[in-house]
């Protein structure tokens, strides 16, 4: 019986796999391979130890689950690295998919294609030793803010928080953290997983003060996989993502890699 079931399951997977593989046939850069790009470097908890091949970390795990649904063996997944700018430049790309926490925005969608979201990240406030600050908008307004230039965090700071003094803006997380260490900014806004990582591993005395609920954030950050504009692969990716969401596989990966998201208060 067990043997029968498992052989049935294997058969089902094989059929589904071959169907998806048919879907992706002739649509990838290299036939039979799926080339996926990530950041350089890629950060915890999205990719653990900057090694996406391990499948460790949220985006790495999603990438392999997706590849499997699309009918690719783990060995057929090829990793490459790109910067943010490279990814949104017009012209040919050297990847099929790019996962590096790209927020889906209307404007970006004109230049490139996004898959359906694989994660909706709430925004969270990172402070250093924030014992004397309460998690409400009025006290947040009095802080000096630091934000990364390439995320959707900046509009949230400007519109939802509207701080009394203009925010300082940086190229990457590391610089925001450095400015916090130098006492030049009091608080910074990141998506929750990044904020948790920075608080735990990078910023000494760092603390995630609170998070915004999706409805309080004007447009919550939704991460999509980036593809070239008009890429026919998009249909296959969306189909596979829908399947991952439907059977709870995506939620499971999220729980495994982003479970720290619990326990941070909502900002009202």
């Amino acid at each position, binding site marked *: 019986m067990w043997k029968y079931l498992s052989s049935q399951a294997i058969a089902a997977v094989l059929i589904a796999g071959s169907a998806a593989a048919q879907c992706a046939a002739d649509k990838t850069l290299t036939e039979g391979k799926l080339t996926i790009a990530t950041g350089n470097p890629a950060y915890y908890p999205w990719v653990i130890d900057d090694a996406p091949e391990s499948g460790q970390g949220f985006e790495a795990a999603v990438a392999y689950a997706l590849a499997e649904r699309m009918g690719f063996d783990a060995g057929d997944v090829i990793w490459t690295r790109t910067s943010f700018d490279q990814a949104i430049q*017009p012209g040919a790309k050297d990847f099929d998919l790019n996962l590096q926490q790209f927020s889906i*925005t209307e404007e970006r969608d004109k230049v490139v294609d996004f898959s359906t979201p694989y994660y909706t990240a709430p925004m969270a406030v990172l402070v250093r030793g924030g014992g004397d600050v309460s998690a409400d908008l009025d006290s947040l307004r009095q802080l000096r803010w630091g934000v990364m230039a390439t995320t959707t965090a*900046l509009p949230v700071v400007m519109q939802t928080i509207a701080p009394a003094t203009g925010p300082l803006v940086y190229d990457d997380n590391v*610089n925001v953290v*450095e400015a916090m260490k130098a*006492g030049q900014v009091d608080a910074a806004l990141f998506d929750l997983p990044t904020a948790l990582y920075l608080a735990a591993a990078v910023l000494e005395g760092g603390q995630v003060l609170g998070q915004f609920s999706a409805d309080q954030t004007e447009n919550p950050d939704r991460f999509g996989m980036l593809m070239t504009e008009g890429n026919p692969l998009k249909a296959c990716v969306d189909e596979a993502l829908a399947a991952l969401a439907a059977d709870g596989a995506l939620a499971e990966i999220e729980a495994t890699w982003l479970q720290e998201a619990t326990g941070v208060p909502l900002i009202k």
Partner: protein
Amino acid sequence: MNRRQAYEAAERRRSLIVAVLSTAVVAAGLILLVPLAPGWPAVRASFFDGGIFVDTFPTLLRAFAIDVMIFAWSVPLICATGLAIALARGARSPALFPLRIAGAVYVDVFRGVPVVLTIYLIGFGVPGLGLPRPWNSPYIWGTVALVLTYSAYIAEVLRSGIESVHESQRNAAICLGLSERDTMRYVILPQAIRRVVPANMNMLVALQKDVALLSFIGPVEILRQAGIYKSLLANFTPYVVAAVIFLAVTVPATRYADHLLNRDRNARR
């Protein structure tokens, strides 16, 4: 008009016609051919979006005011520090030998290190030692970084200017009973500075562009603001706006520097 003048006028007319024609051909080629390139519509949409240009221009211009401000207060500091370093490097008295060494090390270090690195180091590093607000401001320490780097360059230029003033000028001054100090101040320096003005003008044009590097440590000046727009709009047009604003300032400045250089060269002839 004598024969020679008539000949020269004809020559000038001829070269003007050739120049106009060749420029027109090149311009027409660019205007007609570039849009024929298969990727042109995508490039135009990404870099030359008229609507975005108009929308982002006012904010970018306001952000540019920050660059101008930083530039304005940096220049006098750079000149003063550069002069002090140049004088320290030229100190003759043996008692001032440590000063000479310090000057040489200063110049070597800050000319050798990329500006960006100095900005990061000073801009994050010094405030990181625990300075209270407002003394940890990135504006202050970013400016210090620019001053350190650029005064090293200016010091070298000034020193070469000082050395280019002939020894006989110094002799003439001290033979009149002037002190070393007065000799430097009234005889050597005015001549040296006059000689290095053109070179330093080019330095200032470079500084005007490097001011934007302060955005690495937080200030939202024009380049950063353009970057924010780029990321928000997924479009490079804001950078083109920034470039246009920069050019509007640096081109006249560079021309002026060249003009000074030429005048200097002609004067020496």
